[in-house]
């Protein structure tokens, strides 16, 4: 990076000349107030808050007032932040903004973490001089997730800039003008964007606040917080979770430059409420009845002594918990707990990333790709933040237009004016239309096999030595050539795929394209989405899939099945699960929410959710990231790995005696499984760092909150696993980036305190972003092109290929039980192309009968013209269909008719 020297209040400072003055001043640690600027949104110069005085040269004593956010940090620039005239100017701007702002901080949810409060204090504005009435608005109902209070608005525009320009939403806008400008929807209603929750953090004050927090409100300064990882998809966004009085209160974004940056999706932000769901298991259950901890351990021990044990792990449990079960049952008797097909697909993805030359990019690298091909994924619903990142990626190529005119990247509206509607290449081939299609160069909707064929054809068009697709239609040939040309012409091409189609050809085709690009000398990236938060980590354990568990139960004398954080009825059809459960005498389940598997168990142990546990998850990039316990439960809830350790030691196991705490455990895993060699480096060990307080220094009521039990303040709970303390007391020394419990700095109470933790604004956290990549592409060229190209899909008469249709709210197991999100779930339906619907005499809004294997259901019809012929869609993960392993062929009949042996036609 080139460096420029500028003078701030006569002191020479080295800065990044590609940036604006506000950016560099904040990067240097100056407190310069701002509102409309945001590092992810750039500068528009609307609020006039970041005024500084600029001087022509050393002799210039007069200077002129400029907006720091709109002025480049060019070599030799001389500015003053402390000049009395700009100080007064900035105070005057705040005075104007505060003119209409209500005096309601004590009852405002934002109070105590409000950027407007911070900036007001920073400028020294104290006294209201405007004596007229304030303008008022009627607030809107925006759904169960985001609350609206327009009177607090200071018209900075950040909400609409984020919602519309950054996230591509259409239903939020600025209305009217001047003093009565209003930000909201055209009428009351649920915000349509999957990223609406970011308004809570984007808004510098309390116009948009977290509506779920309102039900169990606490000030930020009263929350006990810890760094955590989102468990609601495979991307592993970093979150900060907050607790008060023993319950989880909220989740906010935890900045990680490489992963989620500044934003979360609504599933990630609001899914946390499942932790306090009524299904929560807080005490052991023995034979379906509440039992004490010792009764449970006794039963566990007794069962273990009776005979052989097999363990079924889970892609939504931590590496540590999966490993503990593997250690207890033995590597030969530990199974992955995912359906065979899914297991094969995920292993294929891991293998492609490990054996081939294409690298899995971080989400930041995804955003900086300049040509993208998405194959078979509905990213907005499967990996939402990746969709948000791709929305920015299409700006990369057109950004060169602005660069050609010497318009810096951060000058947001000038860049947007220059670029207009120009978008970089993004091609989407998916089984049905996705929300990202609106920014796509071209889209192709077809059955999974046909998608794979397009993929293989693109690979062949890039590199003629890749196998050719036989009998490809001329249109697909043309499309493949077009996509191949766009990818080849890019500096940072990216291919995205995943397991959503449940089709191996799709995954191999994506790998083939990336490999072909690498072969012709292009630095291609390959990003696979993962179905769950630790699918990747579990795959690295290389445990056999669920059917092997059933085979083992049938072939060997197995007395006990231990299931770890896994509802088997979502993993396989009910009859298969039942036959597995019948094959053993004892079923022990560790989980946190009640489900059909826990219902069937003899012994249920209350497992900690992410909020009550420490552990490591591996995201879709292959990045291992640690999450830390936020609260110390007063119930029997604890990490699954700790339960398993306790019973093993009690039952006399020698192998597990060696580890007592998290650091021992991660060291053991690193030693035993080569893929996890770097696991201890994911976060510093407890011994390496002094105490880090989970509670802010203003945490109130510490001595009083348990006074109803005893007036003597109890000793704070001890955390044996990390340097984080359940206390307000920190040791000296800086906090490592992976252990930052919350972002706060003197004078910066809002989430924008993150400025003080970054090496450069919008860049890496000081000391490097958290997480360690566990896989890198192979340097040896041992890989070979895949040659198994599926034949073109042929629709069957009287049968339809049933594929999963993903929903951000509903398809994921845990967030469905969050109170806010549960109000937004789709009703079960069957999606059909109108032409197919007319074949079976079904109409929109009507009902239809569906025969899946041997089960019949009746469902509402949804007509979707974007669905390919011969295909029907079923919402993924929604009960009662969550155990059905799609895709498979189904039969359809209109209500009132019967299925014949050959279907209805």
């Amino acid at each position, binding site marked *: 990076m080139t460096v420029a020297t500028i003078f701030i209040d006569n002191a020479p400072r080295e800065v990044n000349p590609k940036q604006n003055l506000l950016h560099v001043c904040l990067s240097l640690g100056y407190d310069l107030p701002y509102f409309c600027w945001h590092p992810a949104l750039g500068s528009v110069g609307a609020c006039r808050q970041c005024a500084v005085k600029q001087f022509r040269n050393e002799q210039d004593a007069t200077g002129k007032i400029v907006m720091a956010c709109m002025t480049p940090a060019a070599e030799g620039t001389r500015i003053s932040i402390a000049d009395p005239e700009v100080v007064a100017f900035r105070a005057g701007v705040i005075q104007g903004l505060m003119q209409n702002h209500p005096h309601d901080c004590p009852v405002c949810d934002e109070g105590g973490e409000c950027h407007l409060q911070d900036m007001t204090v920073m400028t020294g504005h104290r006294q209201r001089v405007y004596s007229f009435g304030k303008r008022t608005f009627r607030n809107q109902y925006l759904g169960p997730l985001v609350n609206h209070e327009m009177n607090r608005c200071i018209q900075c525009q950040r909400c609409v800039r984020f919602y519309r320009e950054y996230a591509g939403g*259409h*239903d*939020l*806008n*600025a*209305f*009217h*003008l001047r003093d009565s400008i*209003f930000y909201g*929807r*055209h*009428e009351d209603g649920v915000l349509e964007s999957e990223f609406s929750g970011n308004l809570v953090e984007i808004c510098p004050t309390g116009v948009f606040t977290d509506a779920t927090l309102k039900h169990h409100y606490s000030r930020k300064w009263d929350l006990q917080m810890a760094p955590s990882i989102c468990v609601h998809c495979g991307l592993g966004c970093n979150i900060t979770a907050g607790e008060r009085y023993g319950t989880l209160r909220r989740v906010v974004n935890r900045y990680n430059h490489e992963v989620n940056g500044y934003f979360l999706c609504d599933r990630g932000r609001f899914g946390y409420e499942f932790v306090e769901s009524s299904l929560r298991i807080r005490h052991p259950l023995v034979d379906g009845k509440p039992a004490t901890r010792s009764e449970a351990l006794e039963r566990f021990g007794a069962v273990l002594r009776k005979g052989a044990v097999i363990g079924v792990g889970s892609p939504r449990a931590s590496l540590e918990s999966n490993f503990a079960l593997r250690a207890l049952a033995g590597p030969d008797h530990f199974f992955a707990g995912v359906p065979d097909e899914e297991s094969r697909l995920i292993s294929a993805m891991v293998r492609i990333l490990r054996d081939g030359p294409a690298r899995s990019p971080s989400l930041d690298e995804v955003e900086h790709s300049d040509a993208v091909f998405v194959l078979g994924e509905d990213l907005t619903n499967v990996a939402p933040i990746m969709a948000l990142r791709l929305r920015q990626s299409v700006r990369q190529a057109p950004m060169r237009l602005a660069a050609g005119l010497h318009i810096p990247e951060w000058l947001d509206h000038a860049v947007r004016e220059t670029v207009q*509607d120009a978008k970089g290449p993004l091609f989407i081939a998916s089984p049905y239309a996705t929300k990202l299609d609106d920014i796509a160069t071209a889209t192709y909707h077809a059955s999974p096999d046909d998608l794979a064929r397009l993929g293989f054809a693109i690979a062949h068009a890039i590199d003629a030595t890749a196998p050719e697709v036989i009998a490809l239609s001329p249109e697909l040939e043309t499309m493949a050539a077009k996509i191949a040309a766009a990818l080849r012409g890019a500096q940072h091409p990216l291919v995205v795929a995943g397991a959503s189609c449940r089709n191996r050809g799709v995954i191999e085709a994506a790998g083939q394209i990336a490999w072909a690009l690498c072969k012709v000398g292009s630095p291609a990236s390959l990003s696979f989405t993962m179905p769950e938060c630790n699918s990747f980590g579990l795959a690295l354990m290389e445990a056999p899939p669920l059917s092997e568990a059933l085979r083992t139960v049938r072939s060997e004398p197995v007395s006990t099945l231990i299931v770890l954080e896994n509802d088997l009825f979502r993993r396989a059809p009910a009859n298969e699960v039942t036959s597995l459960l019948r094959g053993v005498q004892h079923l022990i389940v560790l989980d946190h929410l009640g489900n059909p598997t826990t219902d069937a168990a003899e012994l249920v142990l209350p497992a900690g959710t992410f909020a009550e546990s420490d552990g490591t998850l591996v995201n879709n990039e292959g990045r291992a990231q640690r999450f830390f316990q936020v609260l110390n439960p007063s119930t029997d809830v604890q990490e699954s790995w700790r339960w398993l350790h306790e019973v093993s030691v009690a039952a006399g196991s020698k192998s597990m005696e060696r580890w007592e705490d998290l650091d021992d455990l991660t060291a053991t895993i690193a030693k035993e499984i080569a893929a996890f060699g770097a696991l201890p480096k994911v976060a510093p060990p407890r011994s390496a760092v002094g105490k880090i307080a989970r509670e802010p220094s203003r945490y109130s009521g510490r001595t009083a909150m348990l006074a109803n039990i005893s007036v003597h303040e109890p000793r704070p709970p001890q955390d044996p696993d990390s340097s984080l303390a359940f206390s307000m007391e920190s040791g000296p020394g800086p906090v490592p980036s992976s252990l930052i419990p919350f972002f706060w700095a003197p004078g910066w109470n809002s989430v924008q305190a993150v400025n003080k933790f970054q090496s450069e604004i919008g860049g890496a956290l000081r000391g490097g972003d958290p997480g360690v990549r566990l896989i890198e592409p192979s340097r040896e060229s041992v890989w070979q092109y895949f040659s198994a190209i599926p034949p073109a899909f042929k629709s069957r008469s009287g049968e339809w290929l049933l594929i999963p249709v993903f929903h951000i709210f509903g398809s994921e197991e845990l967030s469905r039980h969050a109170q806010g999100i549960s109000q937004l779930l789709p009703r079960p339906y069957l999606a059909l192309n109108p032409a197919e619907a007319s074949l079976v005499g079904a109409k929109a809004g009507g009902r239809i009968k569906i025969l899946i294997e041997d089960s019949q259901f009746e469902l509402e019809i949804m007509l979707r013209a974007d669905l390919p012929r011969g295909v029907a869609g079923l919402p993924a993960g929604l009960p009662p269909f969550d155990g059905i392993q799609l895709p498979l062929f189904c039969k359809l009949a209109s209500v009132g008719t019967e299925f014949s042996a050959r279907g209805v036609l």
Partner: protein
Amino acid sequence: MLTAEERREIEIKLADYPNKQAMSIESMLIVQRHRGWVSDESLGDLSELLGLSVADLDGVATFYNLIRRRPVGRHVAMVCDSVSCWIMGGERIRDRLCSRLDTTLGETTADGRFTLLPIVCLGACDHAPAMMIDGKLYEDLDEQRLDEVVARYK
């Protein structure tokens, strides 16, 4: 529902614009010429026709004071309140108009005959005070002339 006539006019005009977004103001003015104002329902219809969200259209509609989002009377009188008219007695004219019609600026008379709206400038400063009724400009107003003009609109 948009009428066939409104739809036809919009489709003709669409050819003059590079994209549908650019057509938002014109399409709302077409509806307003036919109905006097733009209702929520009309916004919904236009949203469907132009493929723009209702929020997009309403953001534009509420920005411009000449796009009306509330029903108006049979006639719309726009009274200039900018500086030249103010110097030349515009306030007197405004008060007289309001008292004659027994209503205030921004309101519609009880019989639905007139809606009175303020406007910042009619570009007739050399003939202030001025007002405009249903698109026709009236200049050099005094009380007597105002009465004569108003009487023409039933």
